[in-house]
C-alpha cells in the first residue's frame, strides 16, 4: 500500500456473520494499527473457508518482520460474533500495546459487574430452560443461536484482558470525566496513534442506558433453571385450594367440567359454599372454558425468543461507539450500538457525525443499529461504507435491504462494500478472497 496522498486504510475481513476490521494509520516510524473485533456468529460462518483459517490469515497479516503487532485492539462488546476469534492461541504471541473496551467490561467497577452478572445469569437461565423444554421449532433454533452468541465467551475475554504478548493494559471507555465535564462525548489523543483524535460516543452510564443493559427476562426461566422445570413452592397455602394442584390439576379440571355440565347453573337457586354439590354448580357459574384456562397458562409462559432477543439487545447496548478522526478522515465505528446510544450521539455529537466519511454499518446491516434519522438527516453524501454480513436462512431480515439501498442512495459516488460479495465498487480494493480494503484521504 503506497498511496500518493496520506491516507488511512480500513480492511474488512470476511469472517462470516461477524465483524473484524483492521485500521492502518500513518505513523512517524511505522504505520499504526488498530484492530476492531474478531468474531463470528453461530448462525453464519464464512462460506469460503472455516473461521479459524480467517483468523490465521489475519494473524499472518499483522506480522511486521518476525513479530505480529497491533497498537490497539478494540473490543466493541463481548458478543461472540465480535470476540470469538480471540480464543485462538495465536494471539498470545501478538504484541499489543493497549486494549480498549466499553466501561461495562471493567473488572472492578461495581455497576459494570452488576450488569455483566445480570446478563450472564439471565442468558444462562433462558438457555437452561430452553434446553429443558426440548423445543426445536424455528423460533427455538433462533433463540438458541442468539443465546449462544451471548454466553460469557470467557476464553476470548481472558485473552482481551491482558492475554496478548506484553500483557497490555486495558482502557475502559468512556473514562470517568473530569469534574464538571459530561461523560459523553469524550475525546482523547493517544501516543499510540499520533495525530488521531478518538471520540467516544457510547456507551453512556445514564439511568436509561443502564436499565436497557439489564434485560427483562421472565421469572419462569429462573424457575425452570433452578427447579429443573417443576414449579417452586406454591405462593398460598394448600388449605385454600379448591382444586387438585400441579400435575393433577388437569384431570381434576376434566372431572369438574363434566360434573358442572351435568348439573348446570340455575341463578334462581342460592349458591352456598357449604351446600353439597357446590363445587359443580359454582364451576358452572364461572362459565370458564378449558380454552380460557389455556390462555392464562399461555400468559404464564415466556417466549424464549423474546427473552433471548432482550439479552442480545442488552449486550449490543454495551457497544463502544468510536470515531477516529485524522485530518479530513472521520471514521465511524458504532459497534452494534442500539437506539439509545445513537440517539444520544446524534444529540451531543451531531456536527462530528455529519462529517463522517467512513461508516462501519452497525450490526451486520440490520434495522435497529443504523437509525433512519442518522442515514437520512445526519449522514452527508461523501462517505464510504462497509458492512460485514452474511445472508442466513434463519435470519432473513439481516442485512436489511432497504437500509443498504438508502445508504447507497445517499452516496455521491457508490461506495458500499459487503463482506459476503466478491465484487466491490471501484472505490475499494480487494486484497484477497477474504479481505477488502477502503482508503480514506486525510
Amino acid at each position, binding site marked *: 500500500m503506497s498511496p500518493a496522498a496520506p491516507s488511512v486504510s480500513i480492511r474488512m475481513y470476511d469472517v462470516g456473520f461477524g465483524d473484524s476490521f483492521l485500521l492502518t494509520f500513518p505513523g512517524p516510524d511505522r504505520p499504526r494499527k488498530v484492530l476492531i473485533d474478531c468474531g463470528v456468529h453461530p448462525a453464519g460462518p464464512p462460506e469460503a473457508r472455516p473461521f479459524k483459517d480467517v483468523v490465521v490469515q489475519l494473524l499472518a497479516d499483522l506480522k511486521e518482520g518476525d513479530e505480529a503487532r497491533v497498537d490497539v485492539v478494540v473490543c466493541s462488546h463481548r458478543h461472540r460474533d465480535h470476540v470469538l476469534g480471540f480464543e485462538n492461541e495465536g494471539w498470545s504471541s501478538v504484541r499489543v500495546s493497549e486494549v480498549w473496551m466499553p466501561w461495562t467490561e471493567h473488572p472492578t467497577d461495581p455497576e459494570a459487574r452488576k450488569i455483566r452478572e445480570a446478563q450472564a445469569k439471565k442468558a444462562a437461565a433462558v438457555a437452561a430452560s430452553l434446553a429443558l423444554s426440548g423445543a426445536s421449532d424455528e423460533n427455538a433454533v433462533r433463540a438458541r443461536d442468539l443465546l449462544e452468541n451471548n454466553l460469557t465467551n470467557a476464553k476470548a475475554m481472558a485473552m482481551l484482558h491482558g492475554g496478548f504478548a506484553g500483557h497490555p493494559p486495558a482502557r475502559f471507555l468512556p473514562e470517568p470525566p473530569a469534574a464538571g465535564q459530561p461523560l459523553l462525548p469524550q475525546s482523547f489523543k493517544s501516543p499510540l496513534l499520533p495525530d488521531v483524535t478518538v471520540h467516544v460516543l457510547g456507551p453512556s452510564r445514564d439511568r436509561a442506558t443502564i436499565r436497557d443493559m439489564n434485560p427483562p427476562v421472565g421469572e419462569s426461566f429462573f424457575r425452570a433453571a433452578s427447579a429443573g422445570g417443576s414449579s417452586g413452592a406454591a405462593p398460598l397455602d394448600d388449605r385454600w385450594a379448591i382444586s387438585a394442584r400441579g400435575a393433577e390439576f388437569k384431570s381434576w379440571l376434566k372431572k369438574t367440567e363434566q360434573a358442572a355440565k351435568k348439573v348446570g347453573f340455575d341463578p334462581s337457586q342460592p349458591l352456598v359454599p357449604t351446600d353439597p354439590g357446590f363445587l359443580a354448580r359454582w364451576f358452572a357459574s364461572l362459565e370458564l372454558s378449558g380454552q380460557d384456562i389455556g390462555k392464562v397458562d399461555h400468559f404464564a409462559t415466556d417466549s424464549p425468543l423474546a427473552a433471548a432477543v432482550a439479552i442480545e439487545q442488552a449486550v449490543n447496548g454495551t457497544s463502544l461507539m468510536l470515531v477516529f478522526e485524522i485530518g479530513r478522515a472521520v471514521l465511524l465505528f458504532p459497534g452494534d450500538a442500539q437506539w439509545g446510544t445513537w440517539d444520544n450521539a446524534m444529540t451531543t455529537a451531531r456536527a462530528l457525525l455529519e462529517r463522517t466519511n467512513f461508516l462501519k454499518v452497525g450490526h451486520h446491516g440490520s434495522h435497529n443499529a443504523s*437509525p433512519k434519522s442518522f442515514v437520512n438527516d445526519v449522514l452527508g453524501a461523501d462517505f464510504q461504507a462497509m458492512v460485514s454480513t452474511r445472508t442466513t436462512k434463519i435470519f432473513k431480515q439481516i442485512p436489511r435491504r432497504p437500509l443498504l439501498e438508502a445508504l447507497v442512495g445517499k452516496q455521491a459516488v457508490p461506495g458500499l462494500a459487503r463482506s459476503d460479495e466478491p465484487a466491490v465498487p471501484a472505490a475499494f480494493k480487494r486484497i484477497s478472497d477474504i479481505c477488502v480494503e477502503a482508503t480514506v484521504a486525510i
Partner: protein
Amino acid sequence: MQPYPRPERRPLQIFAFDPMLGRAGGRITLSVQNEPLLPGPQGNRIQVIDYDATSKTLYAPVDLDDPAVLMTDGLDPSESDPRFHQQMVYAVAMKVVENFEEALGRSFTFKDRKRLRIFPHAFEDANAFYDPGMVAVLFGYFRADEANPGPNLPGQTVFTCVSHDIVAHEVTHAMVDRLRPNFMEETNGDVLAFHEGFADVVAIFQHFTFRSILAGAIQETHGQLRSPNVLGELAAQFGRATGTGRALRTAIEGGAPDPRLYDTVTEPHERGSILVAAVFDAFFSVYQERIKDLVRIATGGTGRLPEGDLHPDLVDRIAREASKTAKNILTMCIRAFEYLPPVDVTFGDYLRAIVTADYETVISDDRGLRASMVEAFRLRGVKLDGVPSLGEESVRWPRRDPGLRLDFAPLDEALGVSARAFDRGPHRKTRVVESEGTRKKQGEWAKSLEKWGADNAAALGLDPKLEPRVEGFHTVFRVSPGGQLVVELVAQLVQEDKAKRDDPAFGGVPALGGCTVIADAGGNVRYVLTKPLSEERLAVQADFVARCDEQDGMLPWADEAYSRLRMKARSFARLHRGRR
C-alpha cells in the same frame, strides 16, 4: 314478615397501603354498590376467578354474603388468605367502575356485555396486565430478590393484587379499552402513553379520595402545608407500584418541569408520567387555593402554623378539601372521555377534551381547575395542533356552527331507554337487565346512525368513499355543580381504509379515521371531533412505525409474520411486559 330493605352499599375492607411498599399496612373500608353476588365474587360486571397457572391451582372463592363476612365489613386484610385478595380486587375494581359511571353519567358494561374477569394470582411474575382479547386483568406474584429485594423483605412473596394502585391501574386499562377500543392501536407515540398515564391518574386520584389516608399524611406535614412534598410523596409512592412514581417524584422535587419532556421521552410508561405529573400539578395548585382560608383561620392570618401536631379538626378539614379536590380532578379527567376523538389520541387532544368537557358542565372556571390544567400541560411542552396560544378559549374544541342535526330516527326512543338504564332513584330495580329486544333495537340504531354518518360525511370530515361504522353511542346524563341536569348524545363513527391493511409501513396497525359527535338532547350537534383519514395523518403514523422499528431489537431476528404484524406484537409486549 316484611323483608328488610336491601342496603344500597356494601362495605368492604382493603389494604390502605400497598404492603409491597413496606408502609405499615393499615386498612380502609370502601363502600361499593350492593349488587347480588355469587361466590368469587362474581357480580354483574366483575368476575373474580382465582386460577394460578404457575402452580396449577384453583383457589376457593370468597362468599361475601356469608354472615360472618358481612359482620366485619368483609374479611380483615390478610396477605396470606387468597379470599381477602379476591375481596380486595373486587372492591377496588368496583370503585373504579363506579367512579367512571358517576363521571360519565351513564351505566357501564364491558365489551360484548362480558364481565371483566380478574385473576388475582394468575402466574408467578412481577407483572400485572389487562388483556383485551380475554377482557381480563391478570395479576402476578413474585418472590422478592434475596440479594436485591427493593422495598420488600428478601424472599418474601409479593402479591401485586393487594396493591390498590396496581388494581385500579389495570382495571382502568379495561375501562379505557371499553370506551375507546381503538386506543389499543398505536397510531402515534401518545396512544399507549395515554393509556398508561391515564390509568395512573385514576389509580392515584382514586386513592387520594380516601380521606383517612390523606389525614395521616397531612398530620405528618407538621405545618408545612404549602409544600407539595407530603401529598407528592404519597402520590409518588402510589405511582411507584404502577411505574410512574419515579417520574412523579422528579416532577415534584425537581422544581420547574422540563418543557422538552414531551419531545424527548418515548417509552409509554415514562411518557405517560408526563400526563400524571401535569394532572398532579393542577390538583396541587387548586388544593392550595382551597385551603388558604382554612390556614388563615387556623393561624389568625399569619399563615404560620405552630410546630408540633396540628389540631385534628384542622387536619380533618384539610383532608376533606384534598379529597374533594382529588375527586373533582378524577371526575374531570374521566369525563373528558366523551370529548375525545375515537382514534389516534394525543395528549393535546386530551387536554382539549378535559377543558371542553368541564366547560360544558360549568361555564365559569371559578374553581381554577381548567386554568391550572392548561398551565401544567404547557409547562411540559405538550403541543396542540393548530392552536397558537394556550388560552382557555383556544384550547377548547371549537363549537360547531348550528345547522347540523343528529336527526336519526330513533333519537327519542334512545333517550328514553338510556334514561331508564341510568335511573338512580331509591326505588329502582337493583339491576337493569337489557332485554333481547333492546339489544336488537340497538343494532337498528347503529345502522341508522351509520347511514346518518354516510349522508353527512362531508360535514363530519369523513371520507365519503368509506363506510363509517358505529363504535359507540351513548346518552349521557349528569348533574353540574350548579345542580342542573346536562343531557348529551355522544356517537363515535370510525372508518378504516382496508386497502392499507397489508401496507408494511404500518406493521399491522390499521389506517383509521373517524369522529366523535356530541349533540344536545334535541339532536343539535355541538361538537364534531374528527381525525380524518388524510395522507398527512397516515404519514405521521408510518413515521411513528419507522421510529419504533429503529428501537426494536426483535425485528432482525424474528420471522416474517412478526415483521408483518410487528406493531401489534410491540403493543402487546409493552402492555404485557410493562411492569418489570
